[in-house]
């Protein structure tokens, strides 16, 4: 069982590159511990900026740094980063086209029992609605590494959401296919398409194994690039299967499910069922308990797939 959370991988990748690239700057809003970025602050104090609990300041300062050629990574809990500083993300980063990478940590229901103030079930919808803002939800630690390395090479704004807890590996260390802005087909199948992002990819893969035992062939797509959405991958898969399921740790509106349904209905109309958090404050519990309660696990996904095929 993997015990390395994706956020720690981000810190490792940034530290590895910061040795040679002095333009990399990490900003935190009293969030260096939560973001696993304390080692970066200790090892690269000249490339680290603390702004205190001030998310608006965090994002505007990051944009200013980008203006003079720095490569800022601003990390703050996804719940605050995608709402408190939403306008700074929109105006200072996206609209002004600054090379700011916004790292939303402890995304979705990572903070479990802390309540709705700390949950970010709106960040995909919010960030994706901003022109010139990209949205990424890497699924495991290996993909996170490739994604951050790819993002270090471009000069455009992006929002990246990671969870708080370690997630089981979807990929093997030596076998993590990654192409920037192209979804990864994790499992090929022909009866039903399951499209997931972030922490929901692994349970979707597990669901495909359960379905296989019942003679159902499920294709699983890791849509880590929610925006720009890999529409070709969706259409290709949806055309060959009978139904599509989407799975996301997000509200039922404006997230992956809405986007996939848009693409499928316009290109190859068929049933799209979505698994998402409810349009309500979520039940109290750990991430795992919350996922189980709402059917956001292998069994729940398999059940939904069979429902779509029936």
């Amino acid at each position, binding site marked *: 069982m993997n015990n390395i959370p994706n956020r720690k991988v981000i810190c490792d990748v940034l530290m590895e590159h910061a040795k040679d690239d*002095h333009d990399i*700057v990490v900003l935190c809003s009293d969030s260096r511990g939560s973001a696993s970025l304390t080692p970066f602050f200790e090892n690269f104090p*000249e*490339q680290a*900026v603390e*702004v*205190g609990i*001030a998310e*608006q*300041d965090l994002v*505007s*300062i*990051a*944009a*200013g*740094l*980008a*203006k*003079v*050629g*720095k490569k*800022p990574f601003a990390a703050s809990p996804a719940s605050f980063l995608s709402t408190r500083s939403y*306008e*700074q993300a929109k*105006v*200072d980063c996206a*609209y*002004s*086209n*600054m090379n700011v990478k916004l790292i939303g940590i402890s995304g979705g229901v990572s903070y479990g029992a802390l309540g709705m103030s700390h949950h970010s079930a709106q960040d995909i919808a919010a960030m994706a609605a901003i022109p010139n803002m990209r949205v990424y939800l890497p699924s495991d630690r290996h993909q996170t590494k490739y994604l951050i390395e790819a993002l270090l090479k471009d000069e455009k704004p992006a929002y990246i959401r990671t969870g708080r807890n370690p997630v089981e590996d979807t990929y093997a260390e030596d076998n993590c296919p990654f192409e920037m802005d192209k979804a990864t087909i994790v499992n090929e199948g022909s009866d039903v398409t399951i499209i997931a992002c972030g922490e929901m990819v692994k349970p979707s893969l597990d669901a495909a194994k359960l379905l296989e035992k019942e003679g159902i062939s499920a294709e699983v797509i890791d849509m880590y690039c929610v925006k720009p959405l890999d529409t070709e991958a969706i259409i290709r898969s949806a055309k060959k299967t009978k139904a599509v399921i989407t799975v996301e740790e997000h509200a039922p509106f404006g997230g992956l499910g809405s986007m996939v349904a848009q693409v499928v209905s316009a290109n190859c109309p068929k049933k799209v069922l979505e698994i998402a958090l409810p349009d309500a404050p979520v039940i109290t519990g750990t991430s795992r308990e919350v996922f189980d309660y709402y059917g956001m696990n292998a069994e729940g996904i398999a059940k939904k797939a069979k429902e779509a095929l029936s």
Partner: protein
Amino acid sequence: MSNLKALAYKLRKDTIDIIMEGGGGHIGGDMSVMEILVDLYFKQMNISPDNQDSPDRDFFILSKGHSVEAYYAVLCEKGFLDYEEVKSKFSKFGSQYIGHPNNKLPGMEMNSGSLGHGLPVSVGIALGNRMNGKTSRTYVVMGDGELAEGSVWEGFMAGNMYHLDKLCAVIDRNRLQISGSTEDVMAHEDLFKRVQSFGWHVISVDGNDLDELDKAFEEAKQTKGKPTCIIANTTKGKGSKVMENKASWHHHVPSLEEYEQIVKDLEECRSMQG
């Protein structure tokens, strides 16, 4: 300096012509901010079309982005933009010359429009320039109504925390906002002490007096270890009795009759500058 004083009134006329042609504009704040822009662009800042991409240039952010018409007039005079083109296209369908700064245009560093962004963005620019070993200075101009945005005070905190002595914030203190007096809407009566208490060096001047402004900018340059905030006490609608100190002229297009009187008043002011 007398040439620049006259220039400020010439640019006010240019600004008003842009507004007349475009059929809209934040005329009151355009008039109050003019001397600040003129001193920065024609006296203080190391910025011109020749060095606009140089990392060694000085940086300017118009946080009160609605004063863009005055900014257009200044950038045209400075050679960044073509005045006739700006005037004919401002606010027109499909135009790049919109009602707030647009950084796709030469000379404009960042987009603004929503208030309370410029100061923290400028903190980032000043911090980044220091990291890059540059001696560039960063200037940001805010309105006083804008000070009600909490993010401004986040910026004041960070400017102090990082001792950004190459950062200079200017507050266009014209004491009027769209609903009326700033002191009735959200008071900043002890503004000098407020900003000072955030650890900034604060200078209060007549913001429509180029000599006083210029002296303040020089003092800011000499101030080490902390950023400077210049409270520029200005008159909204400065230049003509038709519009001076009238909240209703925050966003207003003069009638032809008003226009003629304003142009006459501006010309009179200009001729008095020697």
